[in-house]
């Protein structure tokens, strides 16, 4: 699925995401201290780092699930947050959100609906598609993630890996230009993670612009164009996978990678 280039915005033409000096505090606790990030259309960025580093907060600020405390956030040509204030109205924000798909750590499928209905819901009620059209598209997407036979099952009848794949299909059903993944495999049993990672890899290969917050370092290494290492609320290091995993420049990153290696087989 090729993403369309954004409407011309001068030199931001191919810039899917532009974050400048974003900060986020909860009361006195500073979670994000001045994040600068640029993501081009078609790029796959992985965000890695220790727990509590602010990774999740970062990605949730990109679609305003969390409101930043300062800075500028521009996504897909829409100025979301500017000069310490939200810059979009409620309707605009809703429109924008369907263009930026999000996949959550805890899947968040609607328990009272089948997989098919889950994937169709947004299409019908936000995009205004007819039920038949939406269901056809949903079936197609579910087949793509390998769940054709499970279409009529409810989330409770699906494994973690299956639920997450449905969640991905649900986000894709909105024809997004950007996909945000917030630790998509952290809540899934290790042996079921592969199926989700495979779907994500396919998406990346098809050219989707993706931001992935993850603990799966090997996976990040394989699919990313760029890897960003976040610790204590700052971007400590960023570069290609080869640069970061091959020979880390910063002490902090080296510490992190060493600690992770200790726990892996």
């Amino acid at each position: 699925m090729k993403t369309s280039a954004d409407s011309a915005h001068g030199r931001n033409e191919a810039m899917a995401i532009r974050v400048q000096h974003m900060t986020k505090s909860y009361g006195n606790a500073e979670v994000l201290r001045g994040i600068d990030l640029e993501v081009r259309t078609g790029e796959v960025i992985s965000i890695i780092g220790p727990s509590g580093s602010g990774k999740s907060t970062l990605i949730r600020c990109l679609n305003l699930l969390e409101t930043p405390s300062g800075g500028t956030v521009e996504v897909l040509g829409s100025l979301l947050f500017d000069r310490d204030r939200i810059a979009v109205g409620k309707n605009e924000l809703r429109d924008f959100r369907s263009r930026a798909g999000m996949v959550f750590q805890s899947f968040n499928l609607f328990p009272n609906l089948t997989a098919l209905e889950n994937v169709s819901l947004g299409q019908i009620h936000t995009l205004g598609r007819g039920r038949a059209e939406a269901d056809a598209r949903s079936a197609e997407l579910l087949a793509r993630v390998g769940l054709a036979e499970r279409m009529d099952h409810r989330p409770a009848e699906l494994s973690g890996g299956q639920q997450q794949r449905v969640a991905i299909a649900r986000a894709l059903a909105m024809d997004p230009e950007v996909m945000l993944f917030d630790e998509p495999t952290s809540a899934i049993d290790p042996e079921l993670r592969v199926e989700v990672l495979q779907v994500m890899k396919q998406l990346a290969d098809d050219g989707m612009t993706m931001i992935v917050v993850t603990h799966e370092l090997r996976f990040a290494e394989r699919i990313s164009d760029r890897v960003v290492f976040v610790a204590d609320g700052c971007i400590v290091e960023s570069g290609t996978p080869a640069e970061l995993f091959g020979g880390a420049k910063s002490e902090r990153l080296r510490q992190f990678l060493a600690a992770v290696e200790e726990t892996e087989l």
Partner: protein
Amino acid sequence: MQLIIDLLPGLGLTFLLWAGICMIGFPLGLLFGYALAFGHAILRIPVLAIVNIARGFPGLVVLYFVYSGLPDVGVYFSNTTSVVVAFSFVAAGYTAGIFRAAILGVPKQQLEAASVLGLTYWKTQRLVVIPQAFKAVLPPLIGFSVVVLQATSLSYAVGLREMTGLAYNLGSITFEALPYMLTTGAIYLVVCIAISQIAAWVQRRSSRTRRRATPKSPPAPTGTSVLRAVPGAGS
């Protein structure tokens, strides 16, 4: 026994009152519940006051207020209407809490999922919140309806011949108050147990096909290991 037959008309009226109170009180409770869950302070404070009065006043007091008190300001209700009005008010007060808890019990993540799909506030309520809250609301609501059924016995105080009033009446005429009262008690007991059993059966049936966890727990981390035990699941 003959006693039971004598009391049947009373039981009929009891059921009628029960139905009336639930059909008026529960929707009203839902409105109160929504107001408490999402309303602005201007709405929440008066509703909170009303709910506290409905729950803090004994049902008998509310009943007397409607039946004996209101006439002094020119509002007259028949004894039947008084019972329904008074107890619907009380039921609304109690169920407001039940509804509020169910609405707020839908996990925040569900609302987030709905918002990233671009659903409007009202669509989210209709398609995501209410269906999930409904399942949480049913058990306590049925439990409470049993309380309502028992409360109808207070109609005796305003001279209504539902089962308790009828039993007392028949008892005083025949000087066999105790047998009538015991039978009345037994009938209430049987009906209440029957309702509870039916409710439990419905619960079991719906949880066989649906998720066992309450809406409060997020689907994910527990979901995977629980599903291992469910046949047919698993990748």
